[in-house]
């Protein structure tokens, strides 16, 4: 575990920039660096960011005792189709499961008859069938054909394959044939990456299991090469501390554990900030939160209940399912670079396509001609053209105006101001709709939560979104643009273990379930041992996945107490959860136990969060500028404040604009801002009739 005298580092590799934070374990002081990615050498980007920070903070490389690393390198490899040359071994006559998928078209293609599904990561000639079969009871009904396996291995060798996914039917019940394939393959080709479906997704449904296994195999060599390259560079610079990898479930793990299933990193991108929000807002006393993270291309929304982020196990990348434990982050294409357009019959659209960072919004002046959400925010007066991104990207108002006039206002026959305010409303609604999807649709009322806004664009839209949803409080943390790296730096170890059961719970004995938990606890102990987590820092959270017998989607029900006395309590909990999620429950219907689940958390020492000194002064605006407020006609003068001049206990009232290097916050009328002792801005919406 961390020695309290040293420093820890958190790294978040995004699409355009890599963020690095350095935190003193003793004082909790945070320094940050933002480095433009070098796409030819990502490890070098990270190392140069670390060196810059060490120099600025005057810290020796040997004083670094911990690095947590979030990376989108695997996700990018998939999207850009730059992963390893991968083969897939399946049962004979079943090699096209990956290509056929669900057989139904994805919704996006139903009317778009001239578009195709994305191509599978393994082309058909590398999908190799081998005779063998296990039935639904887990019994072997056809032994593995060694001759066919030898032929498959020969083909793999001849084609220069780097990585192999193996997925047989019912291997989650009996992995014997998959294990046999690994044995033969690794004997013949010792340098090959081999991923077995039975080791990474022990659940029924062959398509998601196959697709997930293929994802894991496809990115394994990429991730391995990256980690070993990075470790070598760090060692060259005298940094020899452990490196941990941030996973989609919001926790870190040793590289060796992540390499067992590299797909665990595929959706880790938006998870860092959610973990950061849960931690920092928890310290400030907020435990029920809706996170709202707006970057250049997308909006990520997640629900945190009682300081724990909601989790899920299914998502899609490129229309292929990824079955891994992950934070339930709902993403829509609405970010600063999202394109705003009007179609031939006067319909306004925001996103989902984005101009990204390059050429980016029209106002960047880098050749982008489309009107984007950032152009809209600029025209409303929310952004200062001179100080945006610390002045590194001067914004050109004339270009924004021309783009919006030509592409939005003109076609609609309204003036540019009206167009800007109107588009802002449309974007507000899209964000609110995304939040309704993670709250109302899952049985929660957004009014019971505080909204945490971060990412460059979150604080620009949070006030309007909160008003639309009836949310009473908004939290804008300090350095909202670097939230993710900070969350990654202080994330706990987190591992998920699962055993499929799929039997009516009436037929399952408490002893069976206890035995399953014992086995999972053994695996957890081995992994936490490897990570040197002391016994008093381990927490095991058992749960059962239950559903009504006959349903297909299960609900994960946490197990508060032992099941030694039977399942009555947990079944009761299940009925209640079903009622909350789906509006009804059927207490007299039989319940099926689908999976036994164990989450193992190794809690990590958290650096202290140093309270800042506060004088409680009324802050002074640095000026004012005309702003088109979304609920008023015409531009109003709005005072502008600097975030770094807002000390703890500072108070101000809206409307106001608060600027800082990585973001801008808009506060509307009838909202009060108070800065807490951790420098969070807490924005409170007045109830109707309430005065300050």
């Amino acid at each position: 575990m961390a020695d309290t005298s040293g420093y820890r580092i958190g790294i978040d590799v995004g699409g355009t920039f890599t963020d690095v934070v350095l935190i003193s374990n003793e004082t909790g002081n945070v320094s940050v660096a933002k480095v433009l990615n070098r796409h030819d050498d990502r490890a070098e980007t990270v190392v140069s960011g670390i060196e810059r920070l060490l120099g600025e903070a005057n810290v020796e490389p040997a004083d670094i005792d911990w690095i947590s690393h979030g990376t989108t390198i695997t996700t990018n490899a998939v999207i850009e189709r730059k992963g390893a040359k991968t083969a897939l071994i399946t049962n004979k006559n079943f090699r096209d499961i990956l290509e056929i998928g669900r057989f139904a078209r994805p919704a996006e293609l139903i009317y778009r008859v001239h578009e195709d599904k994305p191509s599978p990561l393994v082309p058909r000639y590398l999908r190799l069938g081998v005779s063998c079969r296990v039935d639904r009871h887990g019994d072997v009904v056809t032994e593995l054909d060694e001759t066919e396996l030898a032929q498959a291995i020969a083909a793999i060798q001849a084609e220069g394959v780097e990585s192999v996914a193996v997925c047989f039917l019912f291997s989650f019940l009996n992995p014997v044939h998959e294990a046999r394939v690994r044995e033969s393959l690794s004997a013949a080709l010792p340098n090959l990456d081999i991923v077995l479906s039975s080791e990474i997704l022990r659940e029924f449904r062959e398509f998601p299991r196959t697709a997930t296994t293929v994802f894991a195999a496809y990115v394994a060599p990429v991730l391995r090469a990256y980690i070993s390259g990075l470790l070598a560079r760090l060692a060259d610079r005298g940094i020899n501390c452990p490196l941990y990898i941030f996973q989609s479930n919001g926790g870190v793990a040793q590289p060796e554990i992540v390499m067992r299933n590299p797909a665990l990193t595929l959706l880790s991108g938006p998870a860092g900030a959610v973990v950061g929000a849960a931690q920092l807002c928890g310290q400030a006393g907020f435990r029920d939160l809706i996170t709202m993270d707006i970057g250049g291309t997308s909006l990520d929304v997640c629900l945190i209940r009682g300081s724990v982020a909601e989790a899920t196990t299914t998502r899609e990348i490129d229309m292929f399912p990824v079955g891994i434990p992950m934070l339930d982050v709902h993403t829509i294409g609405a970010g600063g670079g999202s394109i705003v357009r009007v179609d031939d019959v006067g319909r306004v659209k925001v996103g989902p396509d984005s101009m990204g960072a390059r050429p980016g919004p029209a106002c960047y002046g880098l050749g982008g001609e489309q009107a984007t959400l950032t152009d809209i925010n600029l025209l409303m007066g929310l952004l200062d053209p001179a100080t945006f991104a610390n002045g590194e990207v001067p914004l050109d108002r004339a270009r924004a105006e021309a783009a919006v006039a030509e592409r939005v206002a003109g076609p609609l026959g309204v003036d540019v101001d009206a167009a800007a305010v109107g588009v802002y409303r449309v974007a507000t609604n899209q964000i609110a709709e995304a939040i309704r999807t993670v709250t109302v649709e899952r049985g929660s009322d957004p009014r019971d939560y505080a909204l945490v806004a971060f990412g460059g664009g979150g604080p620009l839209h949070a006030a309007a979104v909160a008003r639309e949803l009836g949310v009473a409080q908004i939290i804008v943390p300090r350095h909202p643009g670097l939230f993710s790296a900070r969350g990654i730096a202080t994330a706990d170890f987190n591992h998920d273990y699962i055993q499929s059961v799929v039997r009516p719970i009436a037929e399952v004995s408490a002893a069976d379930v206890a035995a399953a938990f014992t086995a999972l606890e053994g695996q957890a102990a081995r992994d936490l041992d490897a990570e040197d987590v002391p016994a008093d820092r381990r927490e095991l959270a058992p749960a059962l996945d239950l559903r009504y017998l006959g349903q297909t989607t299960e609900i994960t029900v946490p197990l508060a107490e032992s099941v030694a006395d039977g399942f009555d309590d947990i079944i009761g909990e299940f009925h209640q959860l079903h009622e909350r999620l789906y509006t009804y429950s059927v207490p007299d219907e039989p319940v099926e136990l689908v999976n036994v689940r164990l989450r193992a958390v190794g809690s990590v020492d958290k650096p202290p969060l140093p309270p800042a000194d506060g004088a409680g002064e009324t802050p002074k605006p640095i000026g004012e500028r005309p702003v088109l407020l979304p609920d008023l006609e015409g531009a109003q003068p709005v005072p502008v404040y600097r975030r770094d001049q807002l000390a703890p206990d500072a108070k101000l009232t809206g409307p106001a604009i608060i600027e800082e290097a990585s973001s801008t916050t808009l506060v509307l009328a009838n909202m009060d801002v108070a800065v807490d002792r951790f420098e969070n801005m807490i924005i409170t919406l007045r109830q109707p009739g309430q005065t300050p």
Partner: protein
Amino acid sequence: MSVDAFTLAVVHSSLIAIARDMKIMTMRTAYTQLWKEQGDLSCCLMDRDGEIIAQDPNGFPIHVTTMPLQLQGVVEILGRENLRPGDVLATNDPFIGGTHLPDVLIARPLFHQGEIYAYACNRGHWADIGGMGPGSYSPATSDIHQEGIFIPPVKLFEAGEPNPGVLEMIMSNIRNRSIGFGDLRSQYASCETAERRLDALIERYGFDTLTAGMAEIITRSEAMTRASIAEFPDGDYHARDCLDGDGRTEAKIWVDVKVAIRGSDIVVDLSDSSDQATGGMNCSYSAAASAVQYAIKSITDPENPPNAGSYKPITVKTRPGSLVDAQKPGSMIGFGDVCYRVLDATMTAIAGAIGDRAIASGSGSTGTAVVAGRQQRSNGDHYFTTIELSSGAYGARASRDGMNAIRYGPGNAGHIPIEADEIENPLFFEAYEIVPDTGGAGQFRGGNGFVRAFRVMSDRAQICLCADRHETPPPGLSGGQPGATSRYVLNPGTNHEQVLASKTPYIDLDADTLVRVQSAGGGGYGDPRERDQSRIADDLKNGYITEDAAAADYGYADKTRK
């Protein structure tokens, strides 16, 4: 009142989100594999007149666009003045505008200040609706009553209270009532949730704005579609295509399509189609129109969400008493395959007008193979029903090959995962893969079909087929070759091999019978001799075509082999 463009965008996306979430919720809580795994249900919101405002993006066109006429029929029969808040309406009556009896419409009228302003609608394909055999899918039904229980427009709930007599009447006439109850519950729970979210929309934007927005959504979509149609040259176009038989006889039956484009209007006349079938291969006017609407939507405005406005420029004419406008008491169990043929013939006819938007015929059938019966499980002796959809491949397009082994057309049900199928049903799969050479050759190749082969491990099981493209292959376009025909075989390669017709009423299966169902392939596009050599080599390498076919269809000699 008028609604500004921004409010319109806001209201529109909210309404679509509500319809989308209705289906997600139903699938998550459903019991039948047809819904929870295969997604065979669709949701939409309609306005006070029963016109589509917003449909779930994952909804099936054939389900959604047949709902308006059916809902309008329900309201007319029950009387609008008799509807109350909290009512849940139901019907499966195909003659007022539905599809076939297994598709049950659940609708909730939504009220504002005592007046209906919208309906939340959920139509799902029930795995069983009674009738001649389990799974309710015999093509040999000579009248509607053989299909199953006919549910006239009824109130399942009155003012929030269940109507136990009606519910029991329905459940007593279907097999596996516990599945029926669970599914029905998930259908109306989704309508209730939709109602709550629409109430919230009214609160936010005001009732007048919401209803004005609904009207505007339709107006704009109509304008968009008209602008696109106006780009097509005026003219008259004709095509006809056939089905293997009518369910009771083997004689071909014809769908005849005449398309007239005049300015921004399209008139599609199906009047010269064959007379009403004696078996189940018929469809309602509403279903035929739905297939035409899908075809036109996919070539005029595929990017935008569909609604009633998308279809206003389209007029569909039929002859009552023909197979595309069946009258009582005809059976319409095979409506899906009839609709596929309407789609194919419409696309073939209009190809001459639409240039590179044309697409050759796909595999052209629902490929419905029902395997059902009884099985002994640990918790008792039960009915089981599984619907193996055995048809899917795209026709080739003007610049792309057809996609392999994927659903095309106005339906979009998926497959049951093999493991889920084997866990719930007494089946054991031996093959599930793409079949080479089944896509029609062309400059762009038709999509290959696939095979599903499984043993039936029960001695009390039956099979029934309600499919097509067994006798007449899907045609190619612009010189492309037709795709291969579909094929249904019991115990292939043995001395008791039995080839089944695409329309096979329920027959008993011996225990351990191997059933092999194979989809037709899609038609090719353009002259095969024009096909890029590298595409042929790529197809060969990946086994999408065989060497024999490469030589025969393309004159291709693999230079790397001798």
